[in-house]
């Protein structure tokens, strides 16, 4: 095998891979200049020259994306800032104003009191009723927030939809056998769900994948990172908790489910209209 020939082919392959990767980093409507640079790369005499040429695509893509952000039509206008803020507040506060009276109404109707212990008469005697209110309330809150295009509120309700769903399954599976672990597990699940949503929400999407509707590998990675972070924290603070498989799976489930849900919200919320440069 001739080394120079092999290295040249390697450089050529790297150049093509780099250009293809850069292509995915630019919105479809803004690719004219990157396409121009890519077309000219065919004029390079060898693989090394092509690689050097392709590396110039990195600052070009940065320039293109900066320019696109500057040209966004709604950016910086007062209305563009106020409307989502109002929608988010309405979707969070407004829906709490429905859910809280619903829970108190249910306790009154079922003649029980809200209690998180296993004492007689507590809401644990009607787990399906309260779980349905909690899960249904959060899921409906998320749907309302999505309809209002209030992304923050949708993420907010996604955290509680995950927490309530996984928490209900966990409770029905294990019950309260050890009261100090109950609060710790609930806190860990809430933390995992919040982290999962936050990481998946801030994870940068690959432009040009507008037709994908499923969660991407990036969202699954966000879920795994969230679980790893919460798990590390628990191991430092409350080691017996991770020894319990059911609680541990509940935390893993919260992180993964939250990241996937946040990924779906993000895709749903994306502006469907392509913006040219």
């Amino acid at each position, binding site marked *: 095998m001739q080394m120079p020939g092999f290295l040249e082919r390697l450089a050529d392959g790297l150049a093509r891979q780099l250009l293809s990767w850069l292509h995915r980093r630019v919105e479809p409507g803004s690719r004219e*200049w990157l396409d121009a640079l890519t077309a000219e790369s065919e004029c390079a005499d060898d693989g090394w020259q092509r690689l050097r040429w392709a590396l*110039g695509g990195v600052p070009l893509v940065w320039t293109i994306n900066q320019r696109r952000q500057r040209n966004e039509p709604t950016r910086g206008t007062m209305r563009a800032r106020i409307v989502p803020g109002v929608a988010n507040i309405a979707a969070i506060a407004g829906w709490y104003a429905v859910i809280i009276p619903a829970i108190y109404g249910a306790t009154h109707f079922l003649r029980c009191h809200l209690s998180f212990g296993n004492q007689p008469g507590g809401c644990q005697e009607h787990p399906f009723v309260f779980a349905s209110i909690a899960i249904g309330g959060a899921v409906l809150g998320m749907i309302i927030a999505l309809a209002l295009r209030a992304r923050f509120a949708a993420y907010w309700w996604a955290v509680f939809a995950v927490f309530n769903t996984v928490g209900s399954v966990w409770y029905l599976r294990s019950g309260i056998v050890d009261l100090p672990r109950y609060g710790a597990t609930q806190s860990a699940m809430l933390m995992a769900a919040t982290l999962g949503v936050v990481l998946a929400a801030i994870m940068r999407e690959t432009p040009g994948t507008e037709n994908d509707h499923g969660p991407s590998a990036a969202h699954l990675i966000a879920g795994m990172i969230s679980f790893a972070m919460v798990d590390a924290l628990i191991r430092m603070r409350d080691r017996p908790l991770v020894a319990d498989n059911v609680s541990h799976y509940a935390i893993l489930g919260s992180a993964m489910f939250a990241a996937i849900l946040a990924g779906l919200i993000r895709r749903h919320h994306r502006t469907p209209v392509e913006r040219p440069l």
Partner: protein
Amino acid sequence: MPRLPNTSPQTLSVLALLLESPRSWHYGYALSQLTGLKSGTLYPILLRLADQGWLETRWAEPEQPGRPPRHTYRLTGAGAKTARTKLAEAAPSRMTRRLAAVPGSR
């Protein structure tokens, strides 16, 4: 102090080259070879000049089959006029700076 737009040496070298034959269409690769600018410097300059209306762009059919169409550039009428002014303004000031740097030139 912020620099005036399109007065960097790199931009001026591109403008000077385009002005040599203002009515001809130029390819990016050739511009890079002739100015000595790397693609990562050249293309953001071309993009900015096109945004400002100094540069006209066009997709040209490839000379060889199987190759993608090529993007070509030439100065607009207004671009050529402004480029001449910029180059004329830049030339004396550069000359002054170079002379000042030479010992015994004052």
